[in-house]
């Protein structure tokens, strides 16, 4: 039986909430591609930061539901309307998660530190003027400031704080967000990374990155920043060649 994910016809919508689009589909495809690993991972707490329409968190629940019982799912969004729409989307699929309206995860940082086994984030990554960041409504779903990195760079330390020892983190980025630099920043916090999905659309070049804590301190010491970035660029160009072939 093919894995179930959220159905577009059941996804609730509102003019102030970002609808599932290529980036959401790419993120869910990454979760599907990694599904067997996620099942072995046996997470207890999973979380989406910036749940928007609820398409991604609903899909994550559906694709783990039968194989991994007993998971606590949390979803946050800074847009109150998005949190309501997410609840409706969850309900329409007959699943449930606790949804909280908060800035990134600020009300959870103290008590949830070191506890989350899977975090998924489709951040506002579109490069925009800085003043558009943090505006209310649908703009909060895409306005990413300089290089689309303003919100991403705020999310990374929060994710590092919340993830459990074995925690995994999936992040949507564009090539214009300088993903190699993001991976290098996470490398310095002790995370390994890989590209799970690469997809080029007419407008954007999407990468879904996965991060996990790397126990191998030695390799971290040996690596220089420049060797890391060139290695990342090599794996990216080989992925892009594959897609165009």
């Amino acid at each position, binding site marked *: 039986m093919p894995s179930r994910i959220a159905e577009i016809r059941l996804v609730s919508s509102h003019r102030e909430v970002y609808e599932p689009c290529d980036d959401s589909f790419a993120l869910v495809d990454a979760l599907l591609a990694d599904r067997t690993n996620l099942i072995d991972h046996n997470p207890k707490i999973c979380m989406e930061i910036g749940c928007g329409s609820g398409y991604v968190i609903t899909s994550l629940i559906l694709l783990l539901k039968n194989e991994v*019982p007993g998971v606590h799912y949390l979803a946050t969004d*800074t847009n109150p309307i998005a949190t309501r729409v997410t*609840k409706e989307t969850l309900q329409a699929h007959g699943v449930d998660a606790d*949804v*909280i309206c908060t800035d990134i995860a*600020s*009300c959870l940082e103290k*008590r949830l530190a070191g506890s989350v086994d899977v975090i998924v984030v489709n951040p506002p990554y579109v490069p925009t003027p800085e003043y558009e960041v943090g505006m209310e409504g649908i703009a909060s779903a895409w306005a990413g400031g300089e290089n689309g990195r303003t919100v991403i760079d705020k999310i990374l330390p929060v994710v590092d704080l919340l993830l459990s020892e074995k925690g995994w983190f999936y992040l949507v980025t564009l090539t214009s967000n300088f993903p190699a630099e993001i991976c290098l920043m996470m490398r310095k916090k002790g995370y390994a990374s890989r590209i799970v999905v690469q997809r080029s659309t007419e407008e954007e070049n999407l990468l879904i990155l996965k991060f996990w804590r790397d126990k191998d301190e030695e390799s971290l010491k040996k690596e220089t920043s420049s060797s890391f970035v060139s290695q990342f660029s090599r794996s990216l160009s080989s992925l892009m060649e594959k897609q165009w072939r």
Partner: protein
Amino acid sequence: MRLITHNMLSCNIKGVANGFPLLIEAGKVIEKEVDFNPDFLRHMFAKIEWKALVEGARSMGYAELPEDSPDATVLDSDESFLKKLHHALLELHLEEGALVCPETGRKFPVNKGIPNMLLHEDEV
């Protein structure tokens, strides 16, 4: 919002030293049945702040939990305790009401089961 999540929430207004646990003002509480999963409960038990759970459950009309945190061995031997823990953590939903910061008294509204923890500009 369920009590498992309430146990992870704190008020993070600037300058607040102890924003946990948030007091619950229950307007509407509903119950939804969830599959019983002892492994999950054992995993979560270590992370739960017991007093906050007991008080939270009581303010939502459920007073069956023991006042003092039970010894972890209870988790393997006492199924009736596990059932109570299961019910309190996972089956009670605060649909309408508010969460109140224990230090400042600031109220965070809960509507349609969603706590709005957004801070005002002067609270960040």
